[in-house]
């Protein structure tokens, strides 16, 4: 290859990479969308099995229409019976309009469309803090709190454990290494479990941190004070999640790095006398990045589903607490909406990691599958 041709070759190479990456992204988006579609459809079938969704919608229609008729000044003069007949007629019309008289299979497609577009309908009992009764508004209001807490926890656990694991794999068998191995079984307990103890110790025995909630009451003025208050409230749930996952992640990645550092090509690099930092970065970390990301994805998914209980224990006003309150109110639209949102969150997580995977894994770029 001539020197002059090199830059253009690399440019076309990059172009080709970008094209492949775009193709891959589109493929993944379609695949994941189909996955979400199937997942939400399953959720709808589960929720409808006992005819619950139908009953719910019928009740909603009835309430809406009788409210309308009763509130309309034009019908004030009507006698009670005629008004009732009018209500019944309107309900029948509405039932026909919404295809509620059709078999469930046909309607389930309709529900699916609404759920996918997050047109989740109105809550039965609950309302958002701004007073909206739309399930969508209620959920969107809670989403940032969940994202903040769990996003922070995930990144913290991920980066800490990878770095500690790398350090430990370099000198395995040391006292620190053995301590981590001994502590790994402690991850059998989920975050909320440690949360209970942390609340007991740091909020009641030594009251230095708040036992729950997201900000002080009343919320502090100034943005900085507000952020500090949130941070103080975040410490305990973060610590709970951190403690419950950190040792097992360090353990599994340490083992993983150890296995990979005994590969022949690493031995070869060592024999060449390369500095250990370089061996770590180029010969161990680089080829193992994709499996690391896969396990990170699995961990994220696990944490998302654990959110409900952890938030409930810490009274963190996120999606989990919302779902918990919805259970208390038996507010089915909110519960179904919550399931849909969790499905979306998981899909987005998987998607982002897939893309990262593609960027890191040369095989995807080159096009061999």
């Amino acid at each position: 290859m001539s020197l002059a041709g090199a830059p253009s070759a690399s440019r076309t190479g990059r172009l080709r990479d970008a094209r492949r990456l775009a193709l891959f992204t589109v493929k993944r988006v379609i695949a994941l969308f189909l996955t979400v579609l199937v997942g939400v459809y399953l959720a709808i079938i589960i929720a409808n099995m006992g005819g619950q969704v139908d009953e719910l919608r019928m009740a909603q229609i009835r309430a809406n229409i009788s409210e309308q008729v009763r509130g309309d000044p034009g019908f004030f003069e009507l006698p009670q019976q005629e008004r009732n007949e009018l209500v019944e007629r309107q309900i029948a019309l509405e039932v026909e309009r919404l295809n509620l008289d059709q078999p469930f299979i046909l309607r389930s497609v309709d529900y699916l469309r609404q759920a996918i577009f997050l047109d989740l309908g109105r809550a039965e009992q609950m309302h958002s803090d701004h007073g909206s009764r739309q399930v969508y508004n209620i959920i969107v209001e809670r989403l940032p709190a969940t994202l903040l807490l769990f996003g922070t926890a995930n990144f913290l656990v991920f980066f800490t454990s990878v770095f500690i694991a790398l350090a430990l794999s370099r000198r395995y068998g040391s006292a620190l290494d053995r301590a981590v191995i001994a502590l790994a079984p402690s991850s059998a307990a989920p975050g909320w479990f440690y949360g209970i103890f942390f609340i007991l110790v740091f909020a009641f025995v030594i009251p230095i941190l708040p036992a729950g909630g997201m900000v002080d009451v009343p919320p502090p003025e100034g943005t900085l004070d507000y952020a500090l208050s949130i941070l103080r409230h975040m410490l305990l749930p973060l610590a709970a999640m951190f403690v419950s996952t950190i040792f097992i992640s360090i353990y599994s990645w340490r083992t993983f790095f150890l296995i990979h550092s005994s590969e022949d090509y690493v031995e070869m690099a060592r024999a060449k006398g390369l500095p250990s930092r370089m061996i770590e970065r180029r010969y161990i970390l680089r080829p193992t990045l994709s499996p690391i990301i896969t396990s990170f994805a699995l961990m994220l998914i696990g944490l998302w589903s654990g959110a409900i209980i952890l938030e409930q224990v810490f009274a963190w006003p996120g999606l989990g607490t919302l779902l918990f309150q919805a259970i208390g109110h038996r507010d089915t639209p909110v519960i179904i909406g919550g399931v849909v949102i969790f499905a979306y969150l998981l899909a987005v997580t998987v998607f982002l990691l897939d893309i990262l995977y593609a960027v890191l894994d040369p095989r995807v770029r080159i096009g061999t599958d």
Partner: protein
Amino acid sequence: MSPWRERLRQLSRYPSAIAGMGMIAVLVAIAIYAVVAIPYGQALELWRGGEPWRLNPVNAGPVWVDRLFGGDMPRTIVVDSDEAEVEEERFDGGRMVRIPLEFDYESTGFPSGINLFVRSAFEESEPFVRMTWHRPDGEEIQLGGRAMSRQDRVSFSQDWTLERRLGEVAHVALFAVPDEQFERAQPGEYGLTLDAILFEEDAEIAAELVVYGRVHGIAGTDHQRRDLMVALLWGTPVALSFGLLAAVGTTITTLIIAAAGVWYGRWVDAVIQRLTEVNMILPLLPILVMVGTLYSTSIWLMLGVVIALGIFSAGIKMYRAMLLPMREAPYIEAARAYGAGNARIILRYMIPRILPVLIPTFVTLIPTFVFLEASLALLGLGDPVLPTWGKVLNDAQAQSALYHGFYYWVIAPAVLLMFTGLGFAMLGFALDRIFNPRLRAV
């Protein structure tokens, strides 16, 4: 069988494995004891609460914790009129009965309540009972009088007029050292004398005085006076069987599906792969919550849903990777040559080969499901009738146990959960190092 014995020998070299097995053995022993000592039906009956527990205090801590910290909190004292020296005096058309209910109070802490349960038998007219309280210093306090129905209960601690008259709740005022501001209780001989007038010749009356303590048994009691020991004991077999069944159910089904996918290949494999991806998106806990809310919170239904959703779990990908090279193995070809069917090859030739690798995963999965059950219970979706650890935690949470300082209520079930989790996890981790050949060198 010798490779298994070899592995067992290796296992005995890990102290954590020994400890884990010991912990599991303890749990199994507790579970067996619970099932034998309190039969299933009786456990449910007890946990439903109410009548069986009327002699227990509300929210009493464990006795041993109090004594450990040098306390002398009172236990519950029950004085029955059957053991009292009852004096009788007949008059025309009835009787006068004097029942002295005496007891020795040894603590300087106040009791947590006083109840008098009265049973009487009569035709038409209810007996009238006047109550007098005797303190160790000889002082007498009139507690009023009232007519008693056949099954009656006098709750002195909830008598507001009495409280206003005495200046403090009855169970504090009646026991306080005189001339101190209700700071501590006076130990000594107390008594409650009942002067009953029976207006019929053959009417009967019996009474039970209950001075509720502040400590009770090994585990203490909850807000419904139930002895927590029942739930802690019975929670063990429930947790173990739920964890074991869920772990067996999910791993075995997943393994069979993965093997079938690998063996049949092509579209079967593709469908299984896609289903696994769908399943990854399905949030387990929210769906369990939904099922629990819409249908029933029966632990068996939950188990079914957990297994159903666990069939196509992420484990399939791992098993698939392990099974793929096996497909072309000569011994499978040999099996095919003698005419083994598909099912036979999958069940007898492929699955047994990776079972050993599965054992550690399986053992470490058990605590996950034990905690899952507790999580569901914590959300209020625990089994409606079974006493479980999670339900104890849920009650404690609902009653703000930590805020009120009832630490034992939270700590006992939590410690048991942790004990279970650690036991299985420690064994699982050791097994992992023995059964996973790649880890053995490390």
